[in-house]
């Protein structure tokens, strides 16, 4: 077991390193010189002075050869120095920015996952209990329907409906804490994004469990149906749901990108888009580091949790 986990850890870490290297190379060779961009767009400075540019490049360590730059970057990264923002919030340490932005997205994501998981598992169980009957078909098709519509369509449409037509809420804008009314719409929309994954997984696991002999035995003993669902079915149903954690995380990141962009919430997703539009190397690298790390850590966690939940996997 320990060897298996170690091998997994090694696999994911090498992958992480590879992805960071490729990202850095793409930034270095592709994105263009951020210092020159400052002058071309004339937003931050208005000089054409080559000496100033050289000095700025030296300041951010952009005058070194590629491999040296990458080495320095990784070295600093492990010591907690993620560099300083070049153009987005000039000179502010990137780690500071991430520390401010990431929790906002995490709160949104956590609330959305909670709502999505609870309602998704309930819907999945419900739909499996009514297998191939009207309710099941209804749930399955509406989940397919929801799954089809992209977030950047759902959110504006909901805005139209709730703000313009029903006049239920004001235009949500920015971030006023998770428990402010403005957070309701983003949380709802992001949870709609993760809901289909959970419903589908729960439903198929539930259908499989229903035909198990211990369920028949429990029924034969006269255990009430509700108790059977709670005591015998839910655990084996939840196990495969946990394995979708990686998918859920991808859904959350995609969701936060669009939702934060549309509603101007200063979270991680908006940071990604701003960083890329402003060609801010350290920010883009930080976004890649954090994004990949989230996915890899959640995949690794699944590797750890799965054997705990399902003893059959442990035995292998």
């Amino acid at each position, binding site marked *: 077991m320990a060897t298996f986990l170690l091998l997994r850890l090694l696999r994911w870490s090498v992958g992480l390193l590879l992805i960071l290297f490729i990202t850095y190379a793409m930034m270095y060779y592709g*994105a263009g010189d951020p210092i020159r961009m400052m002058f071309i767009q004339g937003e931050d400075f208005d000089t054409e002075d080559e000496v100033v540019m050289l000095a700025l490049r030296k300041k951010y360590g952009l005058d070194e050869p590629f491999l040296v730059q990458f080495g320095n970057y990784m070295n600093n990264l492990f010591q907690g120095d993620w560099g300083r923002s070049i153009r987005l919030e000039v000179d502010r340490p990137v780690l500071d920015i991430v520390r401010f932005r990431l929790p906002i997205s995490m709160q949104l994501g956590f609330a959305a996952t909670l709502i999505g998981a609870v309602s998704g598992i309930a819907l999945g169980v419900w739909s499996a209990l009514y297998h191939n009957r009207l309710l099941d078909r209804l749930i399955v098709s509406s989940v397919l329907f929801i799954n*089809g519509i992209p977030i950047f369509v759902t959110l504006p449409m909901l805005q139209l409906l709730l703000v313009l037509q029903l006049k239920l809420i004001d235009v949500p804008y920015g971030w006023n804490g998770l428990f402010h009314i403005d957070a309701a719409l983003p949380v709802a929309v992001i949870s709609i994004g993760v809901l289909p994954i959970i419903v589908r997984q729960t439903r198929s696991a539930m259908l499989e469990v229903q035909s198990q002999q211990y369920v028949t035995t429990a029924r034969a003993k006269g255990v009430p149906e509700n108790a059977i669902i709670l005591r015998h079915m839910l655990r084996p149903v939840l196990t495969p749901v946990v394995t979708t954690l990686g998918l859920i995380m991808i859904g959350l990141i995609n969701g936060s990108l669009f939702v934060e962009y549309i509603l101007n919430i200063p979270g991680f997703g908006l940071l990604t888009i701003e960083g890329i539009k402003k060609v801010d190397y350290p920010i883009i690298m930080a976004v890649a580091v954090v994004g990949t790390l989230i996915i890899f850590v959640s995949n690794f966690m699944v590797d750890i949790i799965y054997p705990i939940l399902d003893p059959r996997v442990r035995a292998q």
Partner: protein
Amino acid sequence: MSESLPGSKISRVVDDGSIQSGEQRSLWQDASRRFRKNRLAVCGLLVVLFFLVTAVFGPHVSPYDFLEQNIARAFQGPSEEHFLGTDDLGRDVFSRMLHGARTAALVAFFTTAISLLIGVLVGTWSGIRGGRTDEFLMWISDLIQAMPGLLLVILINTTLRRPIINAFDDLYMQTRDPFFLNTLWLDYVLVFSALALIGWPGLARLVRGQVLSINEEDYVLAARAIGASEVHIMLRHVIPNALGPLVVAVTASMGGAVTLEAGLSFLGIGIQPPNASWGSMLEEGRRYWQIFPHLMLIPAVTIGVIQVSFVFLGDGLNDALDPRRNT
């Protein structure tokens, strides 16, 4: 279709016409009967077909030039002259939607074609070779699939633009060929390649799985026993049998590409103006959503309807082409 094996030639002669083609037809007939029973899937298919026809012929019948601006006529609602009204620059929304359909269909087609090509090559190679090759290729595709795809696509799209433009500038300086000055197609190529890059691993995994399982079948063993080459087995036995799941995956891939393209253009990273894309139309319309909601509503509803159709179509195909799932 040429027959290289004496064995199969004989069976073809014996079973000529009636039985052999009858068997083949019944498989697909079966599938089509199952498919037609699923009303939602049939509706999905009709919408997707309509979308493709619009993409091919739409721009030719569009009432106005999709780039033609007329500020005096900006922000009009639907009228007789402008079927779906006009946008902030007075451009005809209907004509722009038709061109957006072509953009979406182009992206769907090329993205799927490229990722299918890479996916089939890598998948079969991986499945046939096995061992180290297989492990390495599957590790790479695992890595790509584990990454948040949208992040990756955004990164590729923003970083590759400049080097390509620079390369073309150099080529222009050397050759003085005006072809290299026109970079309007660049957005498209970038979107195709970025989307294909995250698209192929799924297809490669699917093909590899099919190759592995079909290779176990007795008829493949039989073919091998009478000395059929690997290439022949691939083309005659593995690929035809893997066709069902591949059709499903290709449909999903096309739908996914349409969404991703719209999403990228929505974020201002995909197809840039003045090219028309539903995603960027949605984003432009969003600026005026409280005053002129129709500008946002039209692209939003279109994207939604097409996406839902693709999903229902894929679901129906999946049920129809995979009989094992129904038992």
